[in-house]
């Protein structure tokens, strides 16, 4: 089975096949080949041996979006098999045009909107103030450009990931 995984913006194409027993796998990555022993120690716990090296992971998330937690911290990863990936990447490219969508990073309440429709903003300029968990946080423009859409008004409650403002 061939996969493609993105970690910190970098794509890794690799292939996994089962070898012999149920827990033995071979992974091919670039010019390297790794023989792995994989055990599941719990619903989200994986113990992996490569040679004598131990790797212990908790894998959470859904579908393609995974978080892999270990003693070294959490690695976020997007994974899919190659066929699915082709479709996904086309739509991703479309989204990455010259526009920036500012979304709520957490659920909260809009305290104030600091820009007006049509305003030209510079990177880092304050755009919105959102209150969450008793703290006010100013959201700054991720890129310079023109405010082409404002989706929220002061006092409004927003969910995590909700679209707030579009800058182009």
């Amino acid at each position, binding site marked *: 089975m061939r996969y493609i995984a993105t970690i910190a913006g970098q794509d890794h194409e690799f292939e996994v096949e089962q070898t012999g027993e149920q827990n033995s796998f071979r992974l091919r990555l670039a010019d390297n080949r790794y023989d792995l022993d994989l055990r599941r120690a719990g619903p989200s716990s994986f113990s992996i041996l490569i040679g004598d090296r131990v790797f212990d992971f908790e894998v959470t998330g*859904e579908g393609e979006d995974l978080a892999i937690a270990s003693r070294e911290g959490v690695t976020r990863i997007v994974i899919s098999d190659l066929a699915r990936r082709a479709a996904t990447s086309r739509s991703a490219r479309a989204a990455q045009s010259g526009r920036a969508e500012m979304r709520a990073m957490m659920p909260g309440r809009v305290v104030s909107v600091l820009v007006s429709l049509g305003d030209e903003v510079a990177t880092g300029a304050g755009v919105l103030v959102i209150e969450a968990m008793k703290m006010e946080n100013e959201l700054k423009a991720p890129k310079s450009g023109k405010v082409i859409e404002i989706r929220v008004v002061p006092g409004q409650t927003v969910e995590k990931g909700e679209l707030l403002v579009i800058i182009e």
Partner: protein
Amino acid sequence: MFKRVLIANRGEIAVRVIRACRELEIETVAIFSDADRAALHVREADFAVPVGPPPATDSYLRIDRIIEAARRTGAEAIHPGYGFFSENAGFARAVAEAGLVFIGPPPGAIEKMGDKVEARKLMTAAGVPVVPGSPDVLETEAQVRAVAAEIGFPIMLKAAAGGGGKGMREVHRGEELASALRAVIGEAKSSFGSSRFYVEKYLNRPRHIEVQVLADTQGHTVHLFERECSIQRRHQKVVEESPSPFVTPAMRQAMGAVAVRAAKAVGYVSAGTIEFLADADRNFYFLEMNTRIQVEHAITELVTGVDLVKEQIRIAAGAPLPFKQADLTQRGAAVECRIYAEDPENGFAPAPGKIATLRFPDGPGVRVDTGVYQGAEVPIHYDPMIAKLATWGRDRGEAIDRMRRALDEFVIAGELRTNLDLHRWLMRHPQFLGGEYDNNFLEKEYRPPTEESLEGERLAAILMAAAAAYKNHSAPTGVKIMALQPPASAWKIAARLDLLRR
């Protein structure tokens, strides 16, 4: 001793108080908002009473409902924890008027220390050194400018009723004054219901060092040495340690004596903390008194061996302190890391959510206090601190070695994000290891780490785990790794159902 105590709080401090009560064989009553029905403090209590909808002002800050909950369950005393009503004299009075015992200081002491401006005056009168600043409450920007002209920038603008890092801004230049003033007044109003503020000199390389005190109803007051809390972000403590690597034995003795004097000046009873700012020359100034148990009390417990929460309860029941000042010693060293549900890559904005997986460290010298569990939802309505990790060692070096080890064992993942990486970074930072830091350290030094570039076996292992989890989750084609269905998606369904019900 009390037969039953109500805890007017939530999260780790509610669980902490429940533990203290259980060790004293006192039954516990939890209160909960609709968001906390399945929270750990509810699960651990003997009784639990709902007090309203998720927003704290509708539940945890409803005096009437809390008093009624105590009456209904037959609780004889109320422990306020920290935050919420812990420093609210009105609440303490309402508790007393209901014929119940408030486990904390007398309302008068709360009031005297609660108004930061009045407290400064009182302390000055008692011979306690205070930070230079406005002698009284200010009202206009012009007044602030006048004080600033006198003591010089940088200055701190502070809400008179403030505390816990809220309602304060530092101002380095005159241009910043107007917006900072608006922010302080706004936060002061919304958090404390009062817009009164004052000004303090912002010290050069200040270190936040505080002294724990305990006072009983018989007039005995002792201090339990210092904690250093200079590792801060946005004036919120992130890491604390005891003893302070900065404090000399002479300074320790002087601070302890001053702290006892300050507590006695307001007729203090129960556990409290005198916060000081120390400058680079080891001058120290009274900053404020926290008239409650503090988040970071655990490190004092580790170093002195005294259970501060149990002492609070015993004192409230009228018992004298079981030790004198001379009986108290510091043994070894302790460090505490506050684990927040926040996103370091997004300016440490709160990042709550479901905890899908959770493994706490344990073993020698490690203590975890938490209000969450695997599968718990960290609600968006409250403080994002989800756990406190404290370690003890024979000396500071061992305490830090253990903290590094404990942080490595601490595994948490799910919808939420945490600041674990910040702690891992800090426990390896030469300046922290050398004890050479001040209140500005984090703001100056910390940048979220760029993602490590993964390679070799580690990358292969991560990819394998991802493929296994992905495969397991997606359609059953190709390699079948395990018969197990990962419960993540089932959780999600349950979580959504929960959400719909609320």
